[in-house]
């Protein structure tokens, strides 16, 4: 049961492809190639392991079983990744992350009894299993939150205290298992289920808007779990890949928190709306809203010089990205300066909105990033907010009691007219009211984004 030199060499090549691939993923021009390079390295490592790793008298049926598992996994993974709508992309990342975590947890469950008596290996196994289980359970909850199965953050009373106690209990129990050298499978499964429970408790109080950060964090957890397994087997490619993802994922998590101007602990422990949210929700905004009709908006747009579209997740949900592109082209053909203002966390993940719009062939230079576009709102005639809410909420600037206070927003309130398309007055993901809707300059255009946009396009065409 040794790694032959040729296998070690393949692992070395694979490790290099991971580093190179990750590096190339950071630049728009090389990103796609980087992903393919890492994938090639992975295939190499998997086949190398299958053909070059010599076990002791492994019966053929084992190899057949492995092959069956790989074939089923490949077909299922391929189909899921290809067939699911691009709007569901964050869910997919979460799902696949959870699968990796579960795989790590299972390895721990199986290997435990082989290593009883060796404290260091038992510690490695337990750590990998616990982290993998937390990642799996957490990812599944994140998935449920993203697709709307769990709509509201669920908060048990004193959940921070409860979570920390469960966390400490798992650590203490894990240490006890290592030190006592127990061989009890019961204890192992107890720890496994506690870790699953902790994964659920960790994610369930966190609001849906913060899920990208959570997924990124769980992603680095899974990397860590893979690294522990790599340590156990003295397997350098697993160690390299795992630590690389663990480290890069942690940095990425912080970068995402920065984009929302929040700290990680604020995301994890101060779940959206928990500290001040209840009061903020009671923070009644007085005033009245103005409703507009499609033809009002069409006329307004037809006679303006500059229109900025602010797309949000509502646009994606309504599958209206193609119609909005049509609207943009139509306005453009009328000589109106039109562009999209993309908030870094618009949609459900950073860059999500860019991908959705790119899919419909919107030109890259029509997509303006927040910092570039904010000074432009003052000389914009019409801002058209489609299915976005929290990212244009002025409370982030002027209401210190608001849970999103301090988050950078698109300063649409500086424009001359603001048109907001929403299905209803229902608050956005942060669960808070938006005073922008009560602004004198704002008109609300209620209805399904796709419906409204289609009508708007035909109205504009006839002008």
């Amino acid at each position, binding site marked *: 049961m040794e790694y032959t030199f040729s296998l070690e060499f393949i692992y070395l090549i694979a490790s290099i492809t991971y580093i190179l691939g*990750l590096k190339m993923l950071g630049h728009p021009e090389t990103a796609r190639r980087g992903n393919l390079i890492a994938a090639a390295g992975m295939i190499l490592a998997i086949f190398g*392991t299958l053909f070059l790793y010599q076990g002791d008298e492994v019966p053929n049926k084992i190899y057949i079983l492995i092959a069956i*598992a790989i074939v089923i*996994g490949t077909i299922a993974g391929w189909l899921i990744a290809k067939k699911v709508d691009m709007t569901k992309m964050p869910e997919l990342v979460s799902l696949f992350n959870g*699968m990796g975590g579960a795989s790590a947890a299972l390895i721990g469950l199986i290997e435990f009894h082989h290593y009883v008596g060796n404290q260091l290996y038992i510690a490695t196994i337990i750590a990998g299993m616990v982290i993998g289980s937390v990642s799996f359970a957490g990812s599944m909850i994140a998935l449920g939150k993203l697709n709307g199965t769990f709509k509201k953050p669920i908060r048990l009373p004193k959940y921070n205290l409860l979570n920390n106690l469960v966390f400490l209990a798992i650590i203490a129990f894990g240490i006890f298992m290592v030190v006592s050298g127990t061989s009890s499978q019961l204890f192992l499964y107890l720890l496994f289920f506690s870790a699953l429970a902790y994964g659920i408790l960790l994610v369930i109080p966190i609001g849906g808007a913060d899920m*990208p950060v959570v997924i990124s964090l769980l992603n680095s957890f899974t990397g860590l779990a*893979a690294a522990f397994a790599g*340590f156990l087997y003295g397997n*350098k490619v697993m160690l390299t890949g795992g630590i690389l993802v663990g*480290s890069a994922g942690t940095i990425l998590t912080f970068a995402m928190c920065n984009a929302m101007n929040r700290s990680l602990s604020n995301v994890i422990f101060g779940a959206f709306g928990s500290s001040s949210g209840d009061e903020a929700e009671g923070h009644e905004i007085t005033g009245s809203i103005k409703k507009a009709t499609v033809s009002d908006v069409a006329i307004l747009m037809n006679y303006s010089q500059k229109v900025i579209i602010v797309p949000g997740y509502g646009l994606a949900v309504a599958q209206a990205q193609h119609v909005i592109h049509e609207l943009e082209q139509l306005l453009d053909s009328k000589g109106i300066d039109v562009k999209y203002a993309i908030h870094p966390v618009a949609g459900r993940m950073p860059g999500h909105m860019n991908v959705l719009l790119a899919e419909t062939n919107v030109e890259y230079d029509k997509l303006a990033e927040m910092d570039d576009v904010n000074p432009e709102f003052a000389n914009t005639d019409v801002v058209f907010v489609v299915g976005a809410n929290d990212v244009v909420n002025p409370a982030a600037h002027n209401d210190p009691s608001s849970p999103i206070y301090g988050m950078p927003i698109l300063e649409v309130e500086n424009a001359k007219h603001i048109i907001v398309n929403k299905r209803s007055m229902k608050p956005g993901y942060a669960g808070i009211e938006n005073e922008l809707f009560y602004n004198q300059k704002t008109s609300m255009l209620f209805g399904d984004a796709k419906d409204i946009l289609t009508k708007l396009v035909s109205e504009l065409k006839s002008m």
Partner: protein
Amino acid sequence: MTEFIDFISSNLQMIYIVILMIFVGVEVIGHVPAVLHTPLMSGANAIHGVIIIGAILVMIDADPDNILSISLGFVAVLLGTLNVVGGFVVTDRMLEMFKKKK
């Protein structure tokens, strides 16, 4: 204490890898535009699918008569494959959208 030193000396190569990779990971991700955060996360997600190699090793080294181990190992390989294949394919699908428009 001697146990600790034994541990270090017998795993020196692995410890080097851990430390170096931590820095490489930080270095590689620095200054990435927000637009690429999601594909990057998804790509990294696929890379930790390397756990599948561990799952394959479990299967190869498992006692062929231990049904529980074999079936758990089977599931582990299956889930690991899902992680790898799904991860890379969905990343590619995302990045396909970024191709230059004529």
